[in-house]
């Protein structure tokens, strides 16, 4: 078990150290960490294949109340903005899959849902509270990060701004 102090973590990350961290400095402007995962239907989801689209990457869990508020809105955005190039991907941080399967139908999730893990969480800066949403531009770079209960109107404006960038 590695015992780290946050200041040391920051120093290591800033120095390009290879050690994993609990929560890293901002990923804004950086290329979104790549992943390939099956979604709940078994379909292969490769983030690299989303290049050219605006990706809304949402970390959530079934037990997270604010997450359950956001997800139907993201589903509506997927419907209304999918043709413009929006792709929502939800990463469940539940420990088990069973409740996630049930939630997908209940929350009307019309986009890929993948199961997350600590590795993916760490790669995305440490998901140590939910929800966390990243907006990834058409160039594959992270444009914004939203943590906790978020003003969805503000997020929608940011999505539309990214969609307008060709």
């Amino acid at each position, binding site marked *: *078990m590695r*015992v*780290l102090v*946050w200041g040391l973590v920051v120093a290591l990350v800033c120095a390009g150290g290879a050690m994993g961290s609990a*929560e890293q400095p901002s990923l804004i402007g950086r290329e979104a960490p790549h992943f390939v995962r099956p979604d709940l239907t078994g379909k292969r989801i490769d983030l690299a294949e989303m290049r050219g689209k605006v990706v809304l990457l949402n970390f959530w869990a079934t*037990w997270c109340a604010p997450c359950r508020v956001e997800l139907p809105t993201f589903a509506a955005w997927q419907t209304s903005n999918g043709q413009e190039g929006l792709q929502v991907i939800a990463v469940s941080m539940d420990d088990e899959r069973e409740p996630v399967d049930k*939630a997908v139908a209940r929350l009307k999730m019309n986009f890929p849902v993948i199961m997350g893990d600590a590795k993916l*969480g760490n790669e995305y800066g440490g*998901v140590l509270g939910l929800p966390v949403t990243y907006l990834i531009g058409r160039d594959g770079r992270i444009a914004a990060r939203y943590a906790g209960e978020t003003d969805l109107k503000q997020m929608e404006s940011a999505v539309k701004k990214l969609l307008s960038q060709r």
Partner: protein
Amino acid sequence: MPCQAQFSAPEASVSSIPESDRMQPAALAKMVAGQAADKPLVLQVGSRLMFEQAHIPGSAYAGAGSQAAGLQMLESKVASVRKNKLIVIYCGCCPWTRCPNVGPAYKRLRELGFTNVKALYIPNNFGDDWVGKGFPVAQGE
């Protein structure tokens, strides 16, 4: 892990935890770092995935307090612990008032007869209120 509690209201919310039984992060960090022989038993009662990413050094994962299986795990973790031992539980998955885990875990420990149970007060989430404030962190199982 059973999921019957996933969408139901927690059986006990954090509002049931008296203010006197809330512990501030700085106070726990001092205890964890100290040399006292009788350190508190620190248990994370939220998400295992979050525990693997970051947790308080010396703490153990004890199951999600919002789930029946999690409460069973919690019971097994404290089965041989003396009733007056200081036990500090924490989650940090969500803002304090939204946390589905700490309240039920606190309630269960009290029901089991533990007399010195504290809940770590995490206003926003573990990332902001523990890791981001520079308190010590461990990773892994």
